[in-house]
């Protein structure tokens, strides 16, 4: 009577040992991944809850990490909204020729992954006579402008009623005082609900760790904008806040060869953007969704 019971126990112990061993082996890839994850990183608080000293510490860590992993010395600034400034962007569709210089400038300015040629801007080639996005083409590959076509660049519309911010379960994305919607790359859990919610295809997810060589890295970085993003989090256009909050223009605006892009402070009555809003017949994309974009389009001819 005793024998079978003992054998059964022995088999169970053997089975449990094998099972635990197999589980440890299956989970092995996590070990190398967890090596790079320090306790400080794991416990780091949301950007909006970090005091000055804590944020300085975090920034130092990120700068050191970029040097260690990418071999490039960079400066990460914490640029806050400027009092009395609220940003707006307008785009003259009569001038845009679809050259995609803006998308390219965005790619370089914001340290995008090189392999995927990522950019926050997509330019749709549209047929004259329609505003149906369904008849647009974002992957055109021929000399521009093409006869019978016009071009519609789309990037984050920095909505005043942003669905992406509402849906985020952890408040990893929010709207700043100057109208810019930002993401805390160190707080995002990567659920991608914001990507599903955005009606403008403005958000990007880091499906892999972004790859970029040392000499191509833009070293002038903002904490909430173009610093190198970690794997597994969402990112988006920030109107180049590391530039615009220092009085410069967004990279896409500077790169535009036709002068189709008008960027400025909506609160400054003498600004060019205010002049455009006052004198041109402007419209916004998908107005019916009630997202209230700060990105305006107009035709001039």
């Amino acid at each position, binding site marked *: 009577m005793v024998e079978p019971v003992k054998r059964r126990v022995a088999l169970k112990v053997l089975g449990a040992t094998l099972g635990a061993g197999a589980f440890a082996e299956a989970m092995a890839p996590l070990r190398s*991944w967890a090596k790079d994850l320090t306790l400080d990183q794991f416990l780091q608080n949301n950007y909006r*809850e970090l005091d000055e000293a804590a944020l300085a510490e975090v920034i130092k860590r990120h700068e050191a990490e970029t040097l260690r992993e990418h071999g490039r010395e960079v400066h990460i600034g914490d640029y806050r909204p400027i009092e009395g400034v609220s940003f707006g962007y307008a785009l003259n569709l009569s001038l845009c020729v679809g050259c995609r210089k803006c998308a390219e400038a965005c790619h370089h300015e914001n340290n995008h992954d090189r392999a995927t040629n990522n950019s926050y801007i997509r330019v749709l080639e549209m047929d004259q006579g329609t505003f149906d996005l369904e008849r647009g083409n974002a*992957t055109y590959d021929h000399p521009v402008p093409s006869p019978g076509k016009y071009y519609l660049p789309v990037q984050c519309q920095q909505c005043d009623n942003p669905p992406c911010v509402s849906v985020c*379960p952890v408040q990893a994305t929010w709207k700043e005082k100057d109208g810019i919607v930002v993401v805390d790359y160190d707080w995002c859990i990567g659920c991608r609900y914001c990507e599903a919610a955005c009606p403008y*295809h403005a958000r990007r997810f880091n499906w*892999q*760790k972004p790859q970029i060589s040392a000499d191509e890295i833009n070293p002038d970085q903002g904490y909430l904008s173009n610093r190198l993003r970690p794997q597994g989090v969402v990112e988006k256009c920030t109107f180049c806040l590391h530039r615009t909050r220092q009085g410069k223009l967004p990279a896409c605006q500077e790169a535009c060869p036709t002068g189709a892009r008008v960027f400025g402070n909506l609160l400054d009555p003498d600004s060019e953007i205010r002049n455009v809003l006052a004198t041109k017949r402007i419209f916004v994309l998908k107005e019916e969704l009630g997202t209230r974009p700060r990105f305006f389009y107009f035709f001039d001819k």
Partner: protein
Amino acid sequence: MEPHVVTYPQFLFRMIRRSFDGSWRFYSWMTVLSAIALVGANAWANQVANGLGLTGMSDHVSWGLYIANFTFGVGLAAGAVMMVIPAYLYDDHEMHDVVILGEALAISAIVVCLLFITVDLGRPDRFWHIIPGLGRFNWPISMLTWDVIVLNGYLLLNLHITGYLVYMRFLNEKPKSRWYVPFVMLSIGWAISIHTVTAFLYAGLGGRPFWNSALLAPRFIVTAFISGPAFVILLLQVIRKLTRFHIGDGPIQTLLSVLRVTIVVNLFMVVSEVFTAFYTGGSHLASAKYLFLGLHGKNTLVPWIWSAIALDVGAVGLLIAHLRTQRALFLNLACVAAFAGIWIEKGMGLIIPGFVPSTLHELVEYVPSLTEWKITAGVWAAGAMVLTVSLRLVLAVFTGEESVQNGRALP
């Protein structure tokens, strides 16, 4: 009678020991499931280390197989309430005897859902950001925070109800209604809420016309009452065959009556959606056209959705055949067909067309990668393990094999 401080740890210990004990059939079943779960675990570990780039998802189709299965799983969990309602609201005694099996199913299905959410996260290491009080919980604005609350709440409710009833049976005591009936009543409403909130998650997105429909939540509930009863009808027959636990014909008949109605109501809802999309045209049409007919030469989902429709309609035919002949085979085939049909329809058939075409109307298709299939199989295997073990424990106590008096080692 000994105090609970003594009997409860004893109960837990006996349950844990029991869950590792069984016949060769149990061991081989669990070994197969463990193997599949381990393959999934390994694929997931790789995915965490190397990024979700290992999946077929993209910025255009940013949710895929995981969220599809999550959605279906919530329905399965909610569907189990179709045993609770007859048992507790309408005093169906035969159903009352087996309702605990439905509650065990709800627990396992919720575990599956939570696992699918976890494997979909880009940064699972930051899970604590979503814990109320610890992180920054965007409640009540984000529907996802509602889902966290209702899913975990439903899990806790069912763990409490099942745990309490099993423990009382273990002690050979009559359960006190005030300790479980209010929770059961709460769980009925709660079951509806888990699937409603999950539907609102999609339906609330104005930028996705395919999901932005008031019919989505009702349709979720109806399909939950297809997949749930279909699964339970099969499960009850398996338990009847493999164990000494008594299951009357009543519960199966009751669930069948539910299934006969819901499966037809769902078809009606499919027709309503198709009519609205195709007759109106416009922005709603593109996704529906992509799903049912293919759009501009892209038609990956077309065979899937038509299989689902064929399975749904086939299930209705089989149920009618069963009614005429009373042959169990027809019933069982109908359940399998209905279950598979809803899995496609409410899984890939719902999630993917929401993203195709994208919000800028680009047509980028999605096909799950091998990593995704491995992880998906692994999660379902883990769920089947939870279900198997919890059913074994429930049955061991309810058939009297495990009780406070019966402390001897099992033969």
